[in-house]
């Protein structure tokens, strides 16, 4: 048994958060202790007619209770079916898969840039770092969405003690504008100690974050999403082009890549 061997895991809870967002808790899962921020699980829905697995980034783990949390947004057939599940239903897990985030040094400032449903792995990274003694005040958590209802789990983020910067397109919550613009303004107006960027979100946001890192010469990583039939490196369906030439598999060489590494 290893992370490429499927494991049947029951649903502990499925909670509606806001709009199309849900929090899903699963457990007990034998591999919880091996999870790292940035990694994902490949989730099979054996009790539905959805044939392929769905790649889901890990939002949180409770190692003692062997529980895994995923926060997802209903987007297509798979997430729709998942949202109709209930406590006790069985899901099929592969993972944890992919390369995790490279943590910052204790002397660095962690600038998290999340857009929409890209925020869960960043939430996991922030809580993981804080558990290991990282100063929460050295974590700048930018979280953008179209409107107020898309900024979910605010109280949990605030509870971490990080510097929380919500941004909405329509200004209904936090700063009005695009999250990457807010990050750029903040970085130019505040002299942060050795900032390091971590970004996850929709394609356009990720590209803007990647450009920003390169333009301001701030190191960091971006976490990508791609259609992923297999999730463990054999189908070659999830590849992205690299700046240095060639392709990389998002599931195997990613989903986390260095800023500037991928042609976004």
């Amino acid at each position, binding site marked *: 048994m290893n992370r490429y061997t499927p494991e049947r895991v029951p649903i502990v809870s499925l909670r509606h958060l806001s709009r199309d967002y849900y929090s899903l808790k699963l457990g007990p899962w034998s591999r919880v202790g091996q999870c790292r921020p940035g990694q994902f699980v490949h989730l099979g829905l054996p009790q539905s007619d959805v044939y*392929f697995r769905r790649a889901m980034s890990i939002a949180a783990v409770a190692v003692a209770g062997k529980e895994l949390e995923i926060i997802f947004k209903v987007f297509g057939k798979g997430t729709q079916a998942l949202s109709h599940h209930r406590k006790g239903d069985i899901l099929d897990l592969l993972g944890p898969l992919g390369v995790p985030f490279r943590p910052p040094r204790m002397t660095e400032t962690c600038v998290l840039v999340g857009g929409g449903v890209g925020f869960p792995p960043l939430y996991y990274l922030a809580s993981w770092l804080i558990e290991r003694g990282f100063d929460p005040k050295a974590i700048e958590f930018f979280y953008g969405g179209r409107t107020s209802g898309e900024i979910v789990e605010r109280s949990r983020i605030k509870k971490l003690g990080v510097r929380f910067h919500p941004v909405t397109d329509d200004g209904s919550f936090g700063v009005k504008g695009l999250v990457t613009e807010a990050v750029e303004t903040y970085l130019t107006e505040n002299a942060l100690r050795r900032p390091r960027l971590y970004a996850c979100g929709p394609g356009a946001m990720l590209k803007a974050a990647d450009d920003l890192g390169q333009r301001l010469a701030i190191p960091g990583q971006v976490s990508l999403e791609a259609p992923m039939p297999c999730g*463990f490196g054999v189908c070659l369906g999830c590849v992205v082009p690299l700046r240095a030439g060639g392709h990389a598999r998002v599931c195997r060489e990613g989903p986390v890549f260095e800023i500037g590494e991928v042609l976004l």
Partner: protein
Amino acid sequence: MTPDLRVTIAGVELVNPIMTASGCCGYGEELAEAFPLSKLGALVTKSITLEPRLGHPPPRTAETASGMLNAIGLANVGIDCFIAEKIPFLEKQKTRVIVNVAGSTQKEYVEVCARLNDCPRVDMVELNISCPHVDAGGMEFGTDPAITERLVSEVRKVFSRPIIAKLTPNVTDITVIARAAEAGGADVLSLINTLSGISIDIHTWRPRLTKNRGGLSGPAIKPVALAMVDKVYNCTRLPIIGIGGIATANDVVEFLLVGATAVQIGTALFVEPDAPVKITRDLIAYLKAKKLGSVRELVGKVRKY
């Protein structure tokens, strides 16, 4: 007593009739992390070409009803790298190794197979004359009987071990191509490769694949594959490897009943990396329940109306 799962194809004995399908398990390295490859009857590699290929730009897969479309574009490391870096890994695996070969020209197929003839670890080659989504070669070799026969006979001259011809379903009559491959000197036929298909995003009006068209695989194509295996079984004496949407032991039984001696598992590996292990286990249970001593007792035994 445990039923006998062994089958022999073109003189090569396999521990069971379960193989992987080309393009669904790379060169075996990732799959070996899911289960010991010794549990497979044979491992079939991704298509190997003379030069390395990057494949088509993404997106190159799209989910469809009970299946998927792909236009990966034969992304592979090329024969030099395959021999230098992948064969050493395969040397250590206790399973039969079948190398799938593709090319843009007949000469390319022949050159790659000549190189593989010098690799004793390679038990058989499987000629991909059926890839539906590359610009040159692939399917055009497998839709014209004269070209099929010539290609197989040229490979026959340079490869001394068994040759499998992998057939496309995208033809009017698959038996014409099957007989052409047999005439050219093929030892085994494997079928089917993917069916040509398109899927479109209704919001952007764009096809879901950058190559517009791709190959359909998965449970959706199983009835089509069964019908084709049935047809080919009744027109040739060559052993048949059945392929197309196999995900369970029941699926395997169906393919054997219509005449396949062995089968390949493809798209199901994406859903269950250890599908071959589960399928083998369930196949044993089926044979026991039916009081059959050997899996070979199923081959071609469909009771037709």
